[in-house]
C-alpha cells in the first residue's frame, strides 16, 4: 500500500465492546456485525486493537483479502484462565491453539507497545512482522486545563461498555436525576 500520505485510506477498526476481555458470545456477535459492515463499507485496511480481536480480523482478512494489522496488547481471552489475563500468565499451548495459526496465516502484520511483548510473541512462534509503536503523551497535556467549562451536556460517559463498568447503575441514575433541559432527556 504505497503513497499512503497522498491517498485517502479507509480504515476498518475491529473495536470490541469490552476491550481486553470478551466472551465467546460477544465474539460471535461482533463477528456477525463486522461481516455485515465490511461487506457494505469495503475498507482498504482492517485494524484490530487488542489480542481478542485476532480471531475476528483473521476471519475477515481471510474472507475478503483486505490487508490487515493487529495491535497486540498484553491481554488475552482464555476460558480456563478468566476473561482478562496478562499474556505472560497464559500457558503457551493456549496461545498457540487459539491464536498463532490464524495470526501467521491470515494477518499481514502486527504492532506492539513494547519490545517485551514483541519478544514474547516471536518466542512463541509468530513469524509475521511486528513493529513496536509505543503509546504517546498527549501534546496538550502541558497546557493548563480550562476551568469551569460551561457544558450543556447533562450526562456524559466516556469509556468501555463492559459489564464491569456497571452501566446498568449509570442508566438507573440517569432516570432519577432531575434534568432541567428537557430537550436532552434520554429516550
Amino acid at each position, binding site marked *: 500500500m504505497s503513497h499512503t500520505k497522498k491517498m485517502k485510506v479507509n480504515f476498518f477498526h475491529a473495536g470490541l465492546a469490552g476491550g481486553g476481555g470478551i466472551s465467546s458470545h460477544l465474539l460471535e456477535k461482533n463477528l456477525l456485525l463486522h461481516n455485515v459492515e465490511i461487506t457494505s463499507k469495503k475498507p482498504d485496511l482492517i485494524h484490530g486493537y487488542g489480542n481478542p480481536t485476532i480471531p475476528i480480523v483473521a476471519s475477515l482478512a481471510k474472507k475478503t483479502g483486505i490487508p490487515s*494489522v493487529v495491535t497486540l496488547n498484553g491481554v488475552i481471552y482464555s476460558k480456563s484462565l478468566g476473561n482478562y489475563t496478562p499474556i505472560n500468565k497464559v500457558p503457551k499451548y493456549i496461545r498457540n491453539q487459539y491464536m498463532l495459526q490464524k495470526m501467521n496465516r491470515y494477518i499481514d502484520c502486527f504492532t506492539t507497545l513494547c519490545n517485551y511483548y514483541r519478544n514474547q510473541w516471536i518466542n512463541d512462534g509468530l513469524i509475521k512482522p511486528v513493529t513496536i509503536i509505543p503509546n504517546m503523551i498527549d*501534546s496538550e497535556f502541558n497546557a493548563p486545563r480550562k476551568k469551569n467549562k460551561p457544558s450543556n451536556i447533562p450526562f456524559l460517559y466516556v469509556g468501555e461498555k463492559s459489564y464491569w463498568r456497571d452501566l446498568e447503575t449509570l442508566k438507573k441514575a440517569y432516570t432519577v436525576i432531575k434534568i432541567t433541559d428537557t430537550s436532552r432527556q434520554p429516550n
Partner: protein
Amino acid sequence: MPDVNFYIIGKVKTRYMPKKLPSNLQMMGYVDNLEEWYKKARVYCQFSRYESFGLSVIEAMNYGCIPVVFNAGALPEIVGEYGIISNSEDSLDKDIYNALSMKQKPGLVDWLSQFDNKHREKKIIEVIENL
C-alpha cells in the same frame, strides 16, 4: 519511610488498603489538577506487577519526576536510565531514597521524544506503507 510523604492519586479499592493508614500517606482520590501534582513530586512510583506500557510513568517523567518502577512488562523499557528499576519489594525503601537523591540525567528530552504523537504517527504510516 516516615520521613517521606506519599500521595496516592486515583481510586484505590479499599480491600487493597490497610485499615489504618500511616500518617505520611494520603489518599487523594481523583484530582483535576494532575499536572500540579506531577510538578510538585520529586519521585513517581509505579509498582505494577504487570504493565503493557505505563503512560503515566511517561507523563511523570515529562514533568521531571524520577520514576521508581518494578521490573515488569514494558516499564524498564520506558524508564531507561532515567529512573530506578526495582527488582524486589525488599529493596523498595532503598530504591526510593536513591531516587530522591538522584539528579536528572541529561538527554531526557530526547528520550521522551520517542513517546510523542509525531513519532507514533510516523511509525503507523510506515506500517501501512509496508503492507
